[in-house]
């Protein structure tokens, strides 16, 4: 029998919504947020962003002061425009090649995040 949106899929969606909420609740209980140190300009502090910006932070290692905007703004914009134009790029060069580029970008992001996170 063909599954219908109502009630079959709706029940599944609600089930996953509840699971998500539970997951967030458990995470909030098990790993509660900490209070950071108050701002001071005296001690030595090692600034690190949250994990989802680590790749950008890692990228900036390779760009000296006069070309920071290439790593900090231009490269993210290039990646972003690649994402936006995926439907047309796909038409032009085919799905496999697009997938290859996207996969390469994803792997690079994950590797950069891991390197910066473990450093």
């Amino acid at each position, binding site marked *: 029998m063909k599954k219908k949106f109502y009630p079959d899929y709706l029940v599944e969606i609600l089930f996953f*919504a509840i699971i998500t909420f539970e997951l967030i609740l458990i995470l909030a209980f098990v790993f509660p947020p900490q209070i*950071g140190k108050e701002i001071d300009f005296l001690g030595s502090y090692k600034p690190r*962003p949250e994990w989802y910006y680590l790749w950008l932070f890692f990228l900036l290692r390779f760009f000296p002061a006069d070309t920071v*905007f290439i790593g900090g703004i231009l490269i993210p914009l290039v990646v*972003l425009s690649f994402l936006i134009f995926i*439907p047309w790029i796909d038409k032009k060069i085919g799905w496999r090649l697009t997938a290859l580029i996207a996969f390469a970008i994803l792997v690079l992001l994950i590797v950069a995040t891991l390197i910066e996170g473990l450093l």
Partner: protein
Amino acid sequence: MSIIDWFLDRFRLKTLHRGIFDRDIPEGINYFYCFGGIAFTALLVCIISGLFLSVHYIPSEKEAYQSIIKIHEEVYLGKLIRGLHKWSANVLIVSIVIHSIRVFITKSYRPPRELNWIVGVLIFVVVMLESFTGYLLLWDQKAYWATVVGTNIAGSIPIIGETVLLLIRGDYEVTGKTLIRFYSLHILWFPLIMMILLWAHFHMIKRLGISKPL
């Protein structure tokens, strides 16, 4: 029940269920199709916990840090709400990434759904900006230095860099002006933009239907 019917009738929503419940779901979709819904759930948790946090938070240079401590230690359930806000943001980002990978693999971005893909990418950008502006509101060491580095990147653009830096920071340094600016962006501007984009996203899903799996 009659009062609900009365409301539905006055809003002319009696046939609403037809739009929501009577939709065609193609055969053969799997559980990876859930991640859009999971992301939306996480966003809802984010919005609701954020509403509660904004009651106690004070966006000022002197009091921001103290008010965070107060939320954490004095406010009833404050620690839990902070945790919900933080973790739902993390879950949101992860599930958006998985959702977009799913859409890419099933080739759902192909016509007629190109615009929906673009709107999705824009939603992701807004979520990233939300998390960046959310950083500074804690006004601790991590927040401060992350903002210094982040805004210095924007300031490094040739020619217009200094103007952009001034527009973002409101001053030459990261100060209380930056804090209140980021607060406004975080709780008003970006959520508003996100609402509009989300409406467009869902509207297109409703009109175009879920793409057929391969």
